């Protein structure tokens, strides 16, 4: 059964909007506060672009939008994920596993972040591994969410996370949470009966 790319994208856009206040608050704690805007704007633009160009694969449209127009460190990195998903899905039907594997590899080549550096990589790595193991999409989403939530405990010693220091410990990394929502959306479309929690519960406001 093929998972509908366009449905995943629109679901992701809705989920990100629902989590926007929490994503913004998380990036205010550990960064400059624009992650929620970057992600939501990018997804809204992508959804609009897909509506305007329905023949192109949704992931290809999203890749172009995120790579070309979305700001912040996260924007183009998410664009790379969509780019590799496009390649994988056009080469082999439903190869989300290959797309995430290659997307993560590109994100790491470019961003040079390792697991444990308190970045979106901490959501992507468990998702990739769960996909590679052939687990259900709901399991994949849960693995990504767990990886993202786990960043709350990290006081990174190196990389950009090091600048943040103690201040951010206790709240998770916004980018990791934002990427977890992608796998949540994939699962909601692929396995609508899995009974996943709402996006606001996946990404709660920090301190609540």
């Amino acid at each position, binding site marked *: 059964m093929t998972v509908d790319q366009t449905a995943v994208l629109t679901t992701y856009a809705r989920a990100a909007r629902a989590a926007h206040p929490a994503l913004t608050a998380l990036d205010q704690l550990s960064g400059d506060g624009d992650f929620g805007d970057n992600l939501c704007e990018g997804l809204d633009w992508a959804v609009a672009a897909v509506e305007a160009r329905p023949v192109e694969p949704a992931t290809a449209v999203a890749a172009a939008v995120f*790579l070309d127009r979305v700001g912040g*460190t996260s924007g183009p990195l998410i664009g790379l994920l969509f*780019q590799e998903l496009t390649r994988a899905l056009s080469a082999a039907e439903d190869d989300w596993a290959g797309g995430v594997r290659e997307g993560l590899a590109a994100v790491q080549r*470019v*961003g040079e972040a390792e697991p444990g550096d308190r970045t979106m990589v901490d959501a992507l790595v468990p998702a990739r591994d769960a996909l590679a193991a052939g687990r259900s999409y709901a399991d994949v989403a849960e693995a990504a969410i767990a990886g993202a939530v786990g960043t709350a405990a990290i006081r990174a010693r190196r990389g*950009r996370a090091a600048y943040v220091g103690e201040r951010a410990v206790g709240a998770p990394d916004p980018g990791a949470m934002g990427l977890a929502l992608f796998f949540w959306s994939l699962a909601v479309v692929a396995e609508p009966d899995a009974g996943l929690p709402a996006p606001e519960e996946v990404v709660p406001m920090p301190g609540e």
Partner: protein
Amino acid sequence: MNQLFLPAAEPVDIALRGFARAHPGLVTLHEDPLHVTAVHRHPDRRVGLVSGGGSGHEPLHAGFVGRGMLDAAAPGRIFASPHNRQVYEASRHAAGPDGVLHVVKNYTGDRINFGIAAERLRADGIPVRRVLVDDDLATESDETATGRRGTGATAVVEKLLGGAADSGLGIDELAALGAEFVAASRSVAVAGRAQTSPARGGTAFELAPGDVEYGVGIHGERAQVTVPRPSFDDLVERMTGQVLDALPATNDDGVILFVNGLGATTLLELYAVHETVAGLLDKRGATVAGRLVGSYVPALDMSGFSVTVTALRPGWLTWWDAPSHTPAFPRQELPR
């Protein structure tokens, strides 16, 4: 309080238009996304050379676009990395049959944006390699993971790579050579006055009278050390010594000496520095085989200068001396 003479809106775009208008036979302007490409290319060149980075360092990089050096350059806003789309489009324009080589100064933003562009190019099937320039001794430390900054050596590396690319080398050979050029190049910079802050006007940071920043960068960040200004000779000797000590032992192939102004420093000063460094190199037995003196890698209008030395290996000098036809890099053959 000094202020830059720049239009309030889109200063970089307007300046780049003025740049392209001033050099119509050499470069072509592309506005969306912003980048410039070379009009002419050596027939033997198989790999497109692309560089870029924050603006405020002119003539770097756009001034080095042209036959014999870069095939394209992507300028970001002042002191800010270019967008990956600029690098991507510049690279698509510039790619040769053997792909694209990116020359990247070592800054997080530049690494990421060039990296993303490289991923996009690879997705398009275009071979991409990178030469990372990290010559600045002031940022050499085992503690920082970010490594040495990329500064003055960039101009030297771009010229050497241009000459090498015109000799028909492939992308892997060029990438390997580029890494060797970088490994053979070290720089150190001092400043007597900070650059004008583009946003607020006035100098970006204040120095106590009689102090200099030793080991300053090209983005207006302060140096790690502020020292009482030594005499001219002592200052130049300290800088030269530091650079030479950090380089592999120079041999019979000699060195390239590049005395670079950081913006407000006059040619009179730069030539006096050049003369003094050259004298010190003589004493150390290092032959200066190639020279460059001028403000080629400035930090806006900072007062100060850097000294870069590249220890040559056999064959490199040919590439340094090869003719180039760019707006800013001087390399001309006399009519016979």
